């Protein structure tokens, strides 16, 4: 018995040693291979993985010594994992960045500014501004999205309502919503979604002439009367029962309600093309119209950017790769894959992919688009937005009160940044 126990222990030790050796070997090959460079590229969207791999392969064609390893981390874990990787010094060389997280990464020196002078006039200015921090550009825009109204033509026909005109206003929208609501059939004009500020509240706030955060990022705009008007736009619809109440929208997402023919309109991003073209119900029943005009015309523009880790061992190659990803040939490949590229003039393939829809609407909207509001720690006040506005959406507090409370907490959070 002792013998076998000893042998077992010896085996265990051997196994441990072997695995330790294997680990060491892996680490050393990465450092030793000179000339040959492997860049890691962190992304979160599984539907774009193929396109990213194609871009990586394309880059290797012109840079034979560089291979790119596309690393997919699903959205839910992406930021948590990235933060842990950054803390442990193991961030990917190049990775996707979005607006709400950008300033946090830039201000902490986690990503490297692009020192080289590049021609940024080929991208929408709002996106270049979005990824500029302290006067320095940190990322090249990869794709872009704007928001418009997706509407159900069948429900419009049934209610004998004219399809939205390109120059329609808040009043037109409210009139249509009222007519489209049919309590007996369980159909509502719109769902006043609370969980996507990018598609709902931010748009109406800027349309009403209000603002979410001051340009210097120091002050909340939620106590501005015009901002409150932009919020009331939605709560009024719930109060008039032209939108489902918050409980219903919590149980069933508005996207699902729209795809079940229970909502006549859905404010959605250009990214919804992929969703609505696959859904059997929506694919031949919906179309796109611009967001209605309030005091101003506005839509939220956002887009992802490719950024370089400040700690990368191959800064030159990483920057080359980011420049390639922001180039016209890369944009053309993206457009063919159903992703709206940020590079000006390359979106025609994206628009042409669905001639049945007026996708040009999303592009035309860029001219009056407002960048997604952000600050250094966007996540902190985005949580506050939900906490406080939930009370306005349920009617527990008047909108003015909830918005003022929100502004107070947001100002407190901004002061700590």
């Amino acid at each position, binding site marked *: 018995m002792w013998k076998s*126990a000893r042998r077992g*222990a010896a085996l265990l030790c051997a196994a441990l040693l072997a695995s330790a050796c294997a680990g060491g070997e892996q680490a050393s090959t990465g450092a030793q291979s000179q000339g040959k460079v492997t860049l890691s590229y962190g992304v979160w969207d599984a539907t774009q993985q193929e396109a990213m791999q194609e871009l990586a392969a394309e880059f290797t064609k012109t840079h034979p010594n560089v291979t790119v390893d596309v690393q997919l981390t699903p959205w*839910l874990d992406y930021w*948590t994992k990235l*933060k842990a990787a*950054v*803390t442990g010094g193991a961030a990917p060389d190049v990775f996707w960045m979005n607006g709400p997280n950008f300033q*946090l990464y830039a201000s*902490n020196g*986690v990503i490297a500014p692009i020192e080289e002078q590049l021609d940024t006039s080929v991208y929408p200015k709002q996106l270049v501004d979005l990824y500029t921090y302290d006067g320095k550009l940190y990322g090249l825009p990869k794709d872009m999205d704007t928001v418009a109204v997706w509407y159900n033509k069948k429900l419009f026909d049934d209610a004998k309502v004219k399809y939205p005109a390109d120059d329609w206003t808040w009043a037109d929208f409210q009139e249509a919503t009222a007519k489209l609501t049919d309590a007996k059939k369980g159909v509502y004009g719109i769902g006043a979604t*609370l*969980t996507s500020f990018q598609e709902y509240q931010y748009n109406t706030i800027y349309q009403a002439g209000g603002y979410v955060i001051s340009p210097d990022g120091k002050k909340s705009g939620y106590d501005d009367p015009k901002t409150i008007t932009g919020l009331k736009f939605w709560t009024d619809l719930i109060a008039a029962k032209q939108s489902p109440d*918050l*409980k*219903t929208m*919590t*149980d*069933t997402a508005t996207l699902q309600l729209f795809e079940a023919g229970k909502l006549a309109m859905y404010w959605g991003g250009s990214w919804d093309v992929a969703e609505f073209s696959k859904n059997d119900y929506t694919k031949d029943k919906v179309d796109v119209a611009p967001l209605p005009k309030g005091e101003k015309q506005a839509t939220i523009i956002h887009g992802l950017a490719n950024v370089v880790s400040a700690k990368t061992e191959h800064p030159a190659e990483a920057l080359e790769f980011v420049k390639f990803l922001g180039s016209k040939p890369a944009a053309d490949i993206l457009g063919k894959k159903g992703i709206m590229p940020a590079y000006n003039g390359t979106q025609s393939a994206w628009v042409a992919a669905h001639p049945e829809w007026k996708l040009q609407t999303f592009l035309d909207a860029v001219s009056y688009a407002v960048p997604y509001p952000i600050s250094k*720690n966007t*996540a*902190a006040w*985005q*949580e506050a937005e*939900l*906490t406080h506005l*939930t009370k306005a*959406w*349920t009617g527990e507090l008047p909108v003015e009160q909830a918005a003022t409370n929100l502004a107070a907490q947001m100002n407190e959070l901004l002061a700590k940044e």
Partner: protein
Amino acid sequence: MTTPLTGTAESRPAAAAHQARRRRPRSEILWGYAFIAPTGLGLVIFYLWPVLQTAYFSFTEWGAFGGHTWTGLENYTRLLSDPEVGQAVLNTVLYTALGLLGIPLAIVFAALMNRPRLRGVGLYRTAFFLPVVTMPVAVAMLWRWLYNGDYGLVNQVLAVVGIDGPNWIADPATAMYALVVVGIWSSVGYNLIIFLAGMQGIPKELYEAASMDGAGPVRQFFRITLPMLSPTAFFVSIVSVIGSLQLFDLVFVMTGSGQAARANPAYSRLQTVVQLFYERAFVTDDRGYAAAIVIALLVLIAALTFVQFRLQRRWVHYA
């Protein structure tokens, strides 16, 4: 303690024998430690060390990408004045208390299943145990659909009898109770198995004697089964209280994961302490404060467990 030096002549042989038993060969002791080393090391590295680290971090403030500064008791003073913490503790304690109702339920089911010559007992046991082996996330997703206010099965069944059911998990008035039902449903199988084992350990003679004295099955249950089962019930209540206080996955999935959960009107009634910890640690990057929250939870768990151990004298019978 008796040692050979001070011992009398008479006690010597016994003491020597005792010594012989205690003094094992040195190598044997070493091997003993070697065998517990993997578990011991794992415990120290993966449990004890993180606990100590967390305790330390609860006195610091963190940046989003690591790096921390000592802030003393600041996190704890903030904790005491944070209404969200108070509400989360209240929710968690309420869930735990209501969850204890699952224990009598499990005892009753176990007693029914413990009857001799019961047909299809294997089927019942499997049916009750199935939720235990199912992933909590899957359980939560499923119940989320069942509870859907407009399309859920629960409300469709209620509609048959003319009741217009609420949006169970989106309505502040019902959300907590809906959650407790799921919690009990998914744990009753585990408790039931433990109670069954406990019941089968009760000597048959007790029942035979009781039936000779004319006690019926109900009386036997209350006079024999329940008292003899109290040590098992004590164990189950300790384990389920600790488990309930650490509730996270059910709420996380049922309210809609991520920040969107806050748009659930019932969220403030559902948020548990661990959920709040998760939000502070991983959503708003407030890791020092998050550490303080879990240390407070540790204290709460220790306190409640201590109270339970004190109370056991009143109701647990060790045969």
